[in-house]
């Protein structure tokens, strides 16, 4: 009978193939379970997250997918403070012209998530979607930094103390090895850039000083893996002033390589 034959065959199979495999399978299940239990046993440290942004391939693709034409329309709301040409008329407001689009996108996202606080920027960032942020970033990212005589811009500002240029020049070009301070230009250009680090060649002095002080006191703490907090905390008051003023004076634009 085909039916009983099939039954016998199945019984055989059960006895010969499946039964001997049950023991190792049970062992495997036990191992798997114990591993998961032990894994979850690791104490979770108290977590402080500096920024929700992580430079994964997906985030970089999202942040650089902006449409500059849409950004131009959204960017009309930014003109009043950040200037029509991306250069602010006030030295305490950052210039956005020609900033890397990842930089602008990350700061907007940090304002939105509250990781960076600002009474002005947080409500504005909250009204922008992820795509809007990418569009605005694309628009400012492609703006030229050419001087425009009709533009009302605060950049560059004169140095208040000529000694500051030498102090800042050394820090920008070579850093300070004794304190483990890397040169600014290794991350902020023009020698090298790291992801999320803005170019400082056309940044305003007062804004830079405020940010250095905020990083040093950890009032601003949205830098991934504490890069800027570690550095700014080691700078002296004089050095912070010198750096901010030199960048604000446009000295760094020509580069410090020869000094």
């Amino acid at each position, binding site marked *: 009978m085909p039916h009983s034959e099939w039954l016998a065959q199945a019984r055989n199979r059960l006895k010969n193939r499946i039964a001997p495999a049950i023991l190792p399978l049970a062992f495997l299940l036990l191992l798997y379970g114990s591993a998961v239990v032990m*894994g979850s046993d690791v104490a979770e*440290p108290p977590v402080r997250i500096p*920024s929700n942004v992580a430079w994964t391939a997906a985030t970089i693709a999202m942040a650089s997918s902006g449409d500059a034409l849409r950004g131009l329309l959204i960017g009309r709301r930014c003109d009043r403070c950040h200037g029509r040409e991306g250069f602010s008329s006030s030295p305490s407001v950052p210039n956005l012209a020609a900033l890397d689009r990842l930089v602008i996108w990350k700061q907007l996202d940090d304002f939105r998530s509250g990781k960076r606080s600002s009474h002005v920027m947080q409500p504005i960032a909250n009204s922008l979607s992820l795509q809007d942020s990418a569009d605005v970033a694309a628009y400012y990212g492609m703006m030229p930094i050419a001087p425009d005589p009709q533009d009302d811009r605060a950049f560059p500002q004169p140095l208040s103390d000529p000694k500051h240029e030498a102090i800042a020049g050394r820090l920008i070009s070579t850093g300070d090895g004794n304190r483990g301070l*890397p040169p600014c230009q290794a991350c902020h250009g023009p020698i090298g850039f790291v992801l999320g680090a803005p170019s400082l060649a056309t940044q305003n002095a007062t804004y830079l000083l405020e940010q250095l002080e905020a990083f040093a006191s950890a009032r601003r703490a949205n830098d991934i893996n504490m890069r800027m907090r570690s550095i700014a905390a080691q700078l002296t008051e004089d050095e912070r002033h010198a750096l901010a003023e030199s960048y604000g004076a446009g000295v760094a634009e020509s580069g410090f390589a020869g000094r």
Partner: protein
Amino acid sequence: MPIANSKISLAGSPGSEHSPASASSNAKKRIRVFLVSLALICVWLTVRFPYEVESGVEHLLNGPNRVNPQTLHLHGEFVESNLGPTEEPDGRVTVRMIAEQYLFVPQCVVVPTGVPIRFRMTSADVVHKPAISEAADELKVVPGYVVETHLQFPRAGEYQMPCHEFCGPGHYTMRSRLIAVSPEQFRNLSPDGRVNCASQ
């Protein structure tokens, strides 16, 4: 025709349990299946298991040693509130640090002298190689992996930790300091085991 075929193969197969000749071959078959499944499981454990579950057998043996360098600050043991020295429940001290362009974070770490200290480091971007003066040779820190070592600091004082692997234009200034103090002083400095001297 197919039915007849299957009848023949059944009759000839060692699976029919009534013939005494096939009993030993049945046992052999069972052993073979057992061994093959065991071998397959061994292969899977060594090749796939660590990737299937991050906290797997590898975790049981070595602790977790794979991380995503891009998301160190979001979760896991290298979040910024967990960096630096930590005193564990059994009294041992673990120091966790991130190497990144162009810093070792935290930039200054306080450690106790005379006791073995567990160092766990990972990189957030490229290969770095911290070399701790007098206490250790170079440690190669590769993004994606956690390097772990045990160090002892024989004397109290300051130890330099420069980077010995070219990692970019800021490489020449990349260094941290380790300040070794006596264990009593260490306990007084930090009841919770966390001391950071970077801002001093």
